[in-house]
């Protein structure tokens, strides 16, 4: 086992901005990295470069001491000892489930009883022992997914790549597959890289989350860290459901803002027109406020309710600040649009 290192990785497909631009990151040994970003952000291209399907235009990919790819040379995918679960699962329709799962072994020259034993073990792990002789066409979406996973398990690969593996499954199956992935990761000890645009999936599974946007790596950190301390407005908006407010925060203020500082900043914008003389020289900053940190409190400031949507476990409120900026909050009771109520912003994060 070794670290997977991406070093200034760049990929041009010709024309326009590069699909991937100067991405450097290190996946720790046996780590589970989620590559998170909106569609078209270059995350799949990064994955395909790691697999060896695309060659980087610049930069390099190393696995421990071994150079996998750079602009001039590229180790072909078949010699990387990696495995991948494709979005379409990529099961070979002319082979049975067992043949699909056992193909990587067959290519490595393993046959006979050893082959049967290892295929059986892999199928047992994904609970598909009874389906060994079926064709993929006779399986449901979730079962196909598990066959694809078993095919990854069978050869103990160094790196397992997952390209939006849950995108084609329904909500219920997703939850149970997430569990399967987690168990798989614990048992195999392989480095896993998981591409997704679903932040809940990324948070739930990964040891590290890397956020990509327009081909660039914005931030990489453990899930709790990236949620609590996002870098920049892009990550702030992408992770969680927070609101990014433009507030005048004085120079030298800490990044984690308390209610007292937020009230001062909000008070500045509260005074209409150019009345905020004292704050004129203070630069306007992006401040992330998460809805769970906005609570109703008689001590707070008065905001107008724009909308109130019942979400089952709570109400999602959209509030308007005095200058028109929009703030999201959660509430326990229904409120009427147009109503005014007092709220406290217990925490904010300067981006």
């Amino acid at each position, binding site marked *: 086992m070794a670290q997977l290192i991406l070093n200034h990785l760049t990929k041009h*497909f010709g024309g326009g901005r590069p699909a991937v631009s100067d991405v450097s990151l290190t996946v720790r040994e046996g780590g589970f990295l989620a590559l998170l970003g909106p569609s*078209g952000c270059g995350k*799949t*291209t990064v994955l*395909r470069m790691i*697999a*060896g*399907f*695309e*060659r980087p235009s610049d930069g390099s990919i190393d696995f421990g001491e071994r150079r996998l790819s750079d602009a001039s040379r*590229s180790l*072909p*995918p*078949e*010699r*990387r*000892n*990696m*495995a*991948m679960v*494709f*979005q*379409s699962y*990529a*099961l*070979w*329709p*002319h082979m049975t489930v067992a043949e699909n799962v056992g*193909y*990587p072994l067959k*290519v*490595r020259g393993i046959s006979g009883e050893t082959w049967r034993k290892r295929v059986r073990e892999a199928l047992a792990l994904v609970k598909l022992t009874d389906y060994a002789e079926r064709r993929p066409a006779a399986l449901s979406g979730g079962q196909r997914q598990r066959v694809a996973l078993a*095919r990854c398990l069978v*050869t103990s690969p160094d790196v397992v790549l997952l390209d939006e593996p849950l995108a084609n499954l329904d909500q219920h199956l997703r939850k149970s597959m997430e569990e399967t992935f987690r168990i798989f990761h614990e048992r195999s000890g392989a480095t896993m890289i998981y591409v997704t645009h679903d932040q809940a999936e990324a948070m739930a599974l990964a040891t590290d989350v890397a956020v990509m946007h327009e081909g660039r790596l914005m931030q990489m950190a453990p899930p709790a860290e990236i949620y609590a301390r996002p870098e920049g407005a892009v990550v702030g908006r992408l992770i969680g459901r927070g609101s990014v407010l433009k507030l005048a925060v004085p120079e030298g203020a800490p990044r984690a803002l308390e209610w007292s500082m937020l009230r001062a900043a909000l008070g500045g914008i509260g005074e209409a027109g150019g009345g905020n003389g004292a704050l004129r020289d203070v630069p306007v900053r992006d401040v992330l406020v998460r809805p769970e940190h906005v609570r109703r409190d008689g001590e707070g400031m008065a905001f107008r309710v724009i909308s109130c949507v019942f979400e089952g476990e709570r109400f999602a409120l959209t509030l308007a600040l005095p200058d028109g900026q929009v703030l999201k909050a959660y509430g326990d009771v229904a409120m009427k649009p147009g109503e005014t109520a007092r709220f406290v912003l217990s925490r904010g994060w300067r981006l």
Partner: protein
Amino acid sequence: MLERKNLRSRSRWLRFPFQGRATRMPQVRARAGVSPADEPRWLAPFVIACLFLLCLLPLISLAKAGFAGLVSGRSIGVLTEPATFAAIRNTLITATGGMVVSVVIGALFAFSVALTDVRGKLALSFAFMLPMMIPPQVTALAWVEMTGPASPLLKTLGLAPPLGSPQPLYSLSGISLLLGVQHAPLVFLALKAGLSASPRDGVEAARLAGATPFRVFRDIVAPLSLPGLIAGAAIAFVSGVGNFGIPAILGIPAGIEVLPTLIYTRLASFGAGTFGEIAVLSSLIAVIAAAGLILQQRALSGRDYRIIGLSGANAAFSLGRFRSIVELALVAILFFVLVAPLAALVASSLVPAYGVPLNLQTVSLRAYEEILFRQSMTLKAFANSMFLATASAFGLLAVSVPAAYLMTRRKGWLADALGILIEIPYALPGIVLAVAFILTFAAPLPLLDVSLYGTIWIILVAYFSSFLAVSLKPVMSAFLQMDPSLEEAARLSGAGFLRRMGDVILPLVAPAAGAAIILVFLIAANELTVSALLWSAGTQTLGVAIFNLDDSGSSDLAAALSVLVVVMVVLLMAALEALAKYLPEGVLPWRN
């Protein structure tokens, strides 16, 4: 979505679907496989060399010989001869007349099958496609046997005109009519491809807006189907310009020459300037064909109706009580263009001698006995055609599978350039190609000092060139419909190029490759145009044998051989139909 380019390519079912298909794939997939490490180094040079040899080299030789002939002045005379002018005029008249007939019949069938609720659509389509699969010289023979004073069928029915009265088909209008019948399936296919992509919800919206079925047809369906109609008409015209079998059987006895038959007779009376002359004459054919295609492009420009929304106009119009009438009309047309001529052909093959009426006393299988057991010429032709058809059907896979793989995996200029190369021999009439191959291989091969000219190998090479597109099309659709991640998964499993070819890719394209083999075999076994120019003693093909038997007056033997050929065609088409459910969409022309 229906782009014009796509429509043109779909209209000729043997063309490639890749321009249109590629757009359906997600962006990332379209980029897949740009890495040069994806395929072995020999693959691209191999494919490029094959395509150069089969597609570009003959054309270069043709241009060179024509140019040399004109510059030296030896073949410049052919351009001013009255015979050439007459041939050009006849070619234009018959091709245009044929186009009109094709459009009328083809459009009637296409509209009925694609838009109305007539019954037995698959059977109607299958039967209507048959004339295209039956070799033209057989069609011509069958019609000659059906009409005219010596027709055994008419004699048996007592309808034959008196002996000595002229055969009505030995005329420009006869040639036009038969060209029309032969190529009507091309219009049918072009139009049906366009109609099955026309918007169902567009038709339904017009109905809800209050339009009567007739108005819907006039205001919605007709304008949308016009591009398909124009494309079909152009293909029918170009095919008519290059057709050799029909004017050879109908025109030569009446002294009517068209350009393809003129080339044939010139080559038969071989002289000093012949190569230059036939090069110039076939360039004329190429020019007329190109003019037809350019005219089509002009007519199509500005008619780029992209289809938005749900397509598939199945049974958009219910015919009500007219349904039986329309069905009857369609069956009647099929009777006249298919059943009656084939019945006449069978009848002629069963009479003991020319001019004898067919009845229980006269019926005899002598002609079959003769061609199957006595005539060494027909047996040799049979063996030659089987060899040529088998060799081109299987041999072409060695080119078309790597070419299709390369063109789907590698996007960009290389794939585009290869696509254009393959279109060249396909767009050229067969006779032009045959001349090009004569010119390419007339001289001994460099280094080897062996001449292919006069051997069966020159026919084989010409077949490779003509039918490359036929072989490539099904294989290409299979590759396009295959999820690229299937191969990528095999790569990550550790399988090298040859390993994943054998284990994953070939099994997945196998049904399409099977269809390619049968299609090429079907067409190559019946081919006449190319082999008529390239054969010599001992290398005659089935097509040539039928033509020669008829030419030498043995119409009963020609008819018997033709019947066997038709039986073979139907059996092969039935084999394809049996394969249908394993095949990628769009491979079988008579299916939706």
